[in-house]
């Protein structure tokens, strides 16, 4: 089978709730074989976009196509190709893991032996075979998330759509889940997820940054970081505003004040860091320098740090 060039095609998508624009004129395309992350703070429009793509919410303008099927006018075929993982678990806690999968399979038209085999294979793949008979409520958060994933994968979807898949998981489980998603993408699947974790976004082939309902950027992590020229130096002091003014005067650079820290973009950041400390030893309590991260890209685009914005 030839692979389609585009799995998800989002075109000028918009959603209004009353006067509030939750999503404005968002366009991007997701291709098979890689993970794509939609990064942004809560309230940035991620979940609205997720719900529209999952066919649970209608857009007020624009359209999105999943393997060519519009999520507005042809939701049925679009749903068939998708596996959806929700942020709040969609497991029935009173049912066993196996029962949850059985119900899910039947909703996707599976039955009989095929249903049993797919469920068993899916549980096996996620290391849950031994817990099939346990009620979902007895599973830890991490195991529940894995069961959720097993459920979403059992009908062998071409697109896996996930809303904050690692929120509330401890770091080990997070890594495990991500490894798994990476494996799916490597096998030719399409993985599209929302997240507010930078490290998660770093592992994706493409990253879209959603801010105030708009797509501020959409590119590979490397190219996004390449938008920042050189290094990033952060300076902390007792009076950041006064310190900023003095740095501007002395070094002819314009620092931005983010989260109580002065932030400077420059070539050879290590030199600047040393010079700043030498110039104002009394005023400065701490200096860091580093290569740009997605966090810096996010700050550059939105004027806020993601962690701060998400809190």
């Amino acid at each position, binding site marked *: 089978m030839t692979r389609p060039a585009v799995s998800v095609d989002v075109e000028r998508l918009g959603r209004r709730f009353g006067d509030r624009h939750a999503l404005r004129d968002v366009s991007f395309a997701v291709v098979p074989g890689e993970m794509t992350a939609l990064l942004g703070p809560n309230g940035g429009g991620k979940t609205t976009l997720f719900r529209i793509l999952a066919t649970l919410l209608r857009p007020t303008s624009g359209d999105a196509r999943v393997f060519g099927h519009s999520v507005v006018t042809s939701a*049925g075929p679009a*749903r068939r190709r998708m596996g959806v993982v929700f942020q709040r678990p*969609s497991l*029935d806690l*009173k049912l066993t893991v196996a029962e949850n999968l059985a*119900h899910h399979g039947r*909703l996707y038209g599976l039955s009989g032996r095929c249903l049993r085999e797919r469920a068993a294979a899916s549980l096996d793949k996620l290391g849950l075979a031994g817990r099939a008979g346990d009620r979902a409520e007895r599973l830890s958060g991490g195991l529940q998330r894995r069961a959720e994933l097993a459920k979403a994968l059992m009908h062998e979807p071409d697109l896996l759509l996930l809303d904050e898949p690692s929120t509330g998981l401890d770091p080990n489980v997070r890594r495990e889940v991500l490894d798994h998603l990476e494996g799916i993408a490597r096998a030719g699947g399409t993985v599209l997820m929302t997240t507010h974790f930078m490290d998660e976004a770093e592992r994706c082939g493409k990253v879209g940054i959603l801010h105030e309902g708009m797509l501020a950027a959409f590119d590979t992590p490397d190219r996004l970081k390449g938008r920042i020229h050189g290094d990033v130096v952060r300076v902390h002091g007792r009076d950041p505003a006064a310190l900023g003014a003095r740095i501007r005067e002395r070094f002819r650079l314009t620092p931005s004040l983010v989260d109580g820290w002065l932030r400077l973009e420059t070539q050879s950041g290590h030199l600047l860091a040393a010079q700043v400390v030498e110039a104002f030893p009394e005023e400065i309590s701490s200096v860091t320098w580093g290569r740009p991260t997605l966090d810096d890209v996010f700050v550059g685009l939105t004027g806020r740090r993601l962690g701060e914005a998400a809190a």
Partner: protein
Amino acid sequence: MSALAASATLARREVVRFARQRSRVVGALGQPLLFWLLLGGGLKASFRPAGGAPGPDGDYMRYFHPGIIALTLLFTAIFSTISVVEDRKGGFLQGVLAAPVPRWSIVAGQAAGGSLLAVLQGAFLLMLAPAVGVPLTAAGAAAALGVMAVIALTFTGMGLMLAWRLDSTQGFHAIMNLALLPMWLLSGAFFPAAGAPSWLAWIMAVNPMTYGMAALRRAMLLGGDPSAGEALPALGPSLGILALSCAAALAGASLLARRASA
């Protein structure tokens, strides 16, 4: 076909869930039983229904018995639909809504599951009929079960209409107390229209559940004393109105479910 398979699997889930929540089983059976004993017992001495009592002597416990069956159907229907409100925002239903099945099949599954539970519990109360001296023939019991199924589907359909429309369980409780409970109270379940003031009798005449109640009473009388229950609306029209209400409630729930966002 796959839509029906979806309905069946969702109905099955309702039943399994119910059986695993012991407090729900106890509450759903215990509450109507308690109401029956306390209200029926308390009112027995001072209340003589003006008509419609199964049995010749108009004993209130007997009069109230089909009413309590209807209350059980109502409570069970409500309990099984209330989860829809929470379930679709952050639970099992999210996944169902994202699945390639039409919304009407989801509603059908929920209604079938909820109604099945309601009828099973109603049947338990129906079996107590001989204990209060209600003569119940086999034909009467079978007919009563059939009518109970339609009443249960109607209540579940109404519950689902609310549940798909509302965002909070608090809102659900408020509307339930304001609409569904009075519907039961003014259906002839608790007191007959014959003795009520005319404005109340008028409300009761336009309440579709009055006809469900009448159909249930008449069904229970089948094969028994033909003179009993004369004051009730006739069986045919009652069944007709009940069936129409049921269809309207289920269609309404399907329509609202289709419009509702998750």
